[in-house]
């Protein structure tokens, strides 16, 4: 069993398909949704972890792609802009998973670990420098 994180983008026409249902039922996958914005007749986004056998995940993803959904393994819904970050460390207390962390104690430089980010968006609200933004 492995777990992979995916960023799905739904074009306007495809937001009414019960995609998660089919992933669970037909491909025996465990779904953990971090964040979703799927509104009928509008474009949509879904960020989730998929857990299952490598084969089942591959088949499930192939199925999603037949629905005209864009599947991306590298894109994240939360963006941290290194150039905008001033490393003030205000975010540290607001990030529940320590995805934003002090990478160098001597210089107090902040870094962002995408893998730890659960997209709670707390940093988006709390960063005075607008270094954290959400794709949707």
């Amino acid at each position, binding site marked *: 069993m492995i777990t992979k994180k995916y960023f799905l983008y739904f074009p306007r026409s495809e937001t009414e398909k019960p995609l998660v249902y089919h992933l669970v039922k037909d491909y025996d996958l465990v779904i953990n949704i971090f964040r979703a914005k799927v509104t009928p007749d509008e474009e949509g986004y879904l960020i989730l972890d998929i857990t299952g056998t490598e084969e089942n995940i591959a088949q499930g993803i192939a199925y999603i792609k037949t629905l005209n959904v864009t599947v991306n393994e590298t894109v994240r819904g939360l963006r941290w802009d290194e150039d905008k970050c001033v*490393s003030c*460390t*205000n975010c*540290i*207390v607001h990030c529940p998973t320590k995805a934003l962390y002090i990478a160098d104690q001597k*210089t107090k430089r902040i870094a962002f670990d995408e893998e730890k980010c659960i997209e709670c968006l707390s940093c988006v609200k709390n960063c005075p420098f607008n270094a954290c933004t959400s794709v949707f």
Partner: protein
Amino acid sequence: MKTYDEINKKIESKKAVVLNAEEIIDYVEKKGIETAAKEVDVVTTATFGPMCSSGCFLNFGHSKPKIRITEAWLDDVPVYSGVAAVDVFLGATQLRYNDPANMYYPGDFKFGGGHVIEKLVAGESVQLFGLSYGTDDYPRKEVRTWFTINDLNQAIMVNPRNCYQNYNVAINCSDKPVYSYLGKLKPNMTNATFCSAGQLSPLLNDPLYKTIGIGTRVWLAGAHGHVYAEGTQHSPVCERGENNVPTEGAGTLALTGDMKRMKKEFVRGVSFIGYGVSVALGIGIPIPVLNKDILRHTLIKDRDIFAPVVDYSSDYPNATGNIITKVSYEELRRGTITIEGKEVEVGSLSSYNKALKISEILKDEIKRGDFLISQPIQSLQLDKQMTSLKIINGTKQDINNL
């Protein structure tokens, strides 16, 4: 031991020995104060953080026909135009027109004066909208145009209060969130925020204002500006600890500099959820090592500098003057402090990372002979305390009878 002139001659001949306020600590430990005072010429200090009492005067030049602007907006942010015809003052905390502010609490405060200042320094285009009642000599009644900082005759940053000597650590003792200029403070003392560069901070390295005074040349976001006055709320009479370092706000500086020479990395608009907008600035100040006494003051370490922890849910807004305890910058920078037996996570709004970078940039400029030090033309006052505003109720008659 050394004079300003002697140090400047060494700087001009690119032979000055310059260390930042962090490096000097180890240097003196190794070499001893006597030798270090002879060898080292300048110690660089720096800070980077939100500084609300900042802004700039802009001059647009005259349009044809001329206008005497009486009301104006830059990217919809109101500016003060109660000065000459095409001069305005843009303040850092001015909110954009029509921003809902805290109407939908806590507000986002996406854009304001600080952001316009950032855009100007970055060389981006900004829209000017100005109105006037029209006069014989200034007949135009409206102006709407785009400009960049290069189109302006002058863009002079004029900041009534920067570089607070020390600052509060904010905490929230209540059971609901507090939204402040020190960020979001979670209920029940869950987090604390501080805002100082500690051992790198300019006035903590010159606690009695021996070298930093009116006329001192400073590195203001990349420009070579200067101290033009004591800062507003300058309040040097306060509790002081080790080496005369204040354990509360204390001194402040009023700074000015040419915005056209500033670097965008060190001028940043900021938005505080539920509070408002401001600007964050990077400032570096050189301390000339004139004698042992001045050098000794630059040796202050984070562990010897203390800041008051204040409850921003009650004591701060009600100006009670109460403090919960005092904590050192060493503890603050470590990331947790213990308040009334509880471990509290700490964040900062001042960037030590940027402050270090500025102290290095300034060091390099001095070493290259590009930044000369200047002797103050007047010292900052040492015998002053901040007064509060008295609220007087009643009619003018009552006041006359007081």
